[in-house]
């Protein structure tokens, strides 16, 4: 606060580099994925792009994914986090070879993958397996567990004799701990719980002895108490099978616990990536900050929401779609409290800010705390204050604060143009609720 009220040191903002937005932060060395320490690079997406043409009469295109770079390493989990429609499932489907890419390259074990050759494509598909969100839809209800596992085994290991196939089925059931296997092998999907079905689905994908597992929201349809079981299973399997795992989720908290690297995607663009703990504890991109601050905080009992300043809410029609078609500038602009002209007009590149972190935002110096920034934001005094709170709270140790962001950020999203009273909600809150010890 004091920094803001007394802008004395102006050196930093005067430097020409700061005009570009990144100066104080850019890191000169190469980017190294936080997932890379676990093992060998297995699957890589380079500038992966998917553009959909909107149907007649519209002539618009939607780029669902733009220039995504993702690298999956043996024994590691990379989480792809984003809201619905952000393009996270599209990336998984592209990597799985289920939909054709518009441009970019997919590289498996050093070889560029050309999905047009049938034989190679089949080989690719067996090495890259997918587990889907809905454990109820993904298994055909008229077939027993045995059948579900037998099929992929005979496809991927056609030389196996009948008895060997049966043995393999048992071994798969063991791997996913559906025990005693005897009891599960002859069950129909409807006789299994959601967690058990998801394990059958995982066992089925393991039948191909894949190198890569693409898990698209594998637990979001499951009960809280069962989710962890499935996640720990995947966690355990990646070790035992040297699997490279892509974990697609909307739940950034689970990424914190489960993934080595967390990649945040917004409107088809990767906006931030880094070690999961860093990204969740020190989010740098305003969208990641919003995501983190919106998550319920059990330690903040009745805190943020209940004591939040009671300002009238605003409607925030979702801008995602129009942003997806327009193509220029940062897609988070309509929802971003830091957004200015530049954000609307120029696309912020993903910039490496430390060895294993990247961020795409023209105003990271505003949202990152450990850089002193002292300028008054061009928007207004109060915006600048919010900026400071956001930066301060999202990174400070008192986490109750981070929820201010959500409140203030939301208030900023007034899209029908009338200006909001963006008075910071902080002062009275601090005196009144505080952190629950």
């Amino acid at each position, binding site marked *: 606060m004091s920094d803001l009220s007394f802008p004395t040191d102006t050196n930093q903002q005067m430097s020409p580099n700061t005009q570009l937005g990144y100066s104080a932060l850019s890191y000169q060395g190469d980017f190294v994925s936080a997932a890379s320490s676990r093992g060998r690079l297995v699957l890589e997406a380079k500038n992966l792009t998917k553009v959909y043409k909107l149907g007649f009469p519209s002539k618009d295109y939607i780029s669902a994914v733009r220039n995504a770079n993702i690298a999956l390493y043996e024994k590691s989990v990379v989480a792809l986090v984003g*809201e*619905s429609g952000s393009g996270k499932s599209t990336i998984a489907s592209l990597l799985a070879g289920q939909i054709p890419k518009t441009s970019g390259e997919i590289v498996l074990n050093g070889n560029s993958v050309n999905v047009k050759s049938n034989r190679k494509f089949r080989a690719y598909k067996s090495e890259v397996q997918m587990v889907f969100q809905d454990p109820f839809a993904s298994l055909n209800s008229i077939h027993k567990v045995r059948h579900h596992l037998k099929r992929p085994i005979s496809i991927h290991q056609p030389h196996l004799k009948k008895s060997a196939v049966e043995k393999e089925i048992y071994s798969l059931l063991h791997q996913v701990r559906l025990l005693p296997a005897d009891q599960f092998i002859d069950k129909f999907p409807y006789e299994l*719980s*959601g*967690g*058990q079905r998801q394990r059958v689905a995982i066992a089925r994908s393991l039948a191909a002895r894949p190198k890569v597992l693409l898990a698209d929201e594998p637990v979001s349809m499951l*009960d*809280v*108490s*069962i*989710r*962890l*079981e499935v996640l*720990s299973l995947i966690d355990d399997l990646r070790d035992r099978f040297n699997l490279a795992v892509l974990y697609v989720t*909307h*739940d*950034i*908290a*689970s990424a*914190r*616990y*489960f993934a080595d690297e967390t990649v945040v995607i917004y409107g088809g663009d990767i906006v931030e990536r880094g070690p999961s*703990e860093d990204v*969740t*504890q020190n989010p740098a991109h305003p969208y990641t900050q*919003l*995501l*983190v*601050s*919106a*998550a*319920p*905080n*059990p*330690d*903040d*009992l*009745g*805190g*943020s*929401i*209940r004591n*939040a300043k*009671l300002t*009238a*809410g*605003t*409607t*925030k*029609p*979702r801008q995602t779609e129009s942003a997806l078609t327009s193509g220029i500038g940062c897609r988070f602009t309509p929802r971003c409290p830091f957004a200015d002209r530049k954000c609307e007009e120029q696309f912020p590149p993903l910039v490496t800010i430390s060895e294993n972190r990247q961020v795409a935002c023209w105003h990271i110096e505003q949202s990152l705390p450990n850089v002193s920034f002292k300028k008054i934001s061009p928007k207004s005094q109060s915006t600048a204050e919010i900026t400071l709170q956001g930066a301060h709270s999202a990174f400070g140790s008192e*986490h109750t604060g981070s929820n201010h962001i*959500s*409140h203030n950020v*939301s208030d900023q999203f007034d899209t*029908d143009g009338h200006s909001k009273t963006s008075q910071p909600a902080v002062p009275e809150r601090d005196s009144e609720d505080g952190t*629950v010890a």
Partner: protein
Amino acid sequence: MTIPFEKHRIPTSDIGVSGSLTTSSASLLSVRDLSVEYRGERTTKAVKNVNFELRKGEILGIAGESGCGKSTLAYAITNMLKHPAYITSGEVLYAQGDSGNTVDILRLEHEQLRNFRWTEISMVFQSAMNALNPVTSLKKQFSDIFLAHKPGMTKAERLEKSIRLLEMVGLNKNIINQFPHELSGGMRQRVVIAMALCYMPNIVIMDEPTTALDVVIQRDILDEIIRLQKELNFSIIFITHDISLLLEISDRLLIMYAGEIAEQARTEAIVSRALHPYTNGIMLSIPDLYGQRRELRGIPGMPPDLSLDIPGCPFRPRCSEAFEPCSTWPPPKIFVANEPDHFVRCHKYGSSDFMGGA
């Protein structure tokens, strides 16, 4: 553990007990011994002898896994269950106005019930935002609600009130002429909340009102709900599987398991000293973003099939602390001393072992 307990052994049902023990200041709704079953080839006992109170101006959270009976309970309270669901026991007492009159909602007949539902208690359903008629304008949908209950209102009055409601939930009045399919999920959910508040009911029951929404939008809607609740001072029964959300917004919490309330407490108490092994298991299953990373555990197994008779404690097959009595006797309801709002249904706190030695 050194928490002193009072022991109340209530072998079969808890009729009347909660009323006398939870001495509440202003109880608005009192659910007593409520049981519901779905009849068919096999009978599913979805709600079993449930007791609780809802107080004026509070947010009561009901948390539990899929299929534990949360929605059934919500429908039962508002007397909206239809075949094959049957209420097999209990009453739902509602304290009407300042008159001190109480009515048993379960005994209300058609017309009475219909009025009662919008004016005294309203509901926001699990899939409500998809339940809006997509091809009818919001104006007409609001108008229909008013016509059904207050036929005396003029057209202008109806429009004015609809607009006020939209603005109240943070929507722009211009959308009144739009159709639900033109709105985002978050906006639709706001509309549904506005409709639930048409007659300023005393109680709003919300069944998973934000579950289908993205986190950030979910947070906006929650903010809105809390703001309205503070302003208008109605009571909320907030039902969800997402316990972490309830930990933040609710005053008191009921943890449901297999059709029963496994634990009830003030929300702080659930955070700081949850007693039921299931509650503890759930708390250790949720990845969180705040503070040190904790060791997460999850709960093995799955909830029981409610169409089977479950001897003993329904949580026993998954419970790491189960011991002899758990497989035979239904666990008693144990009230925690000095915490009138806190009870737990578990042998751990009521066995003779516990009372004698530990």
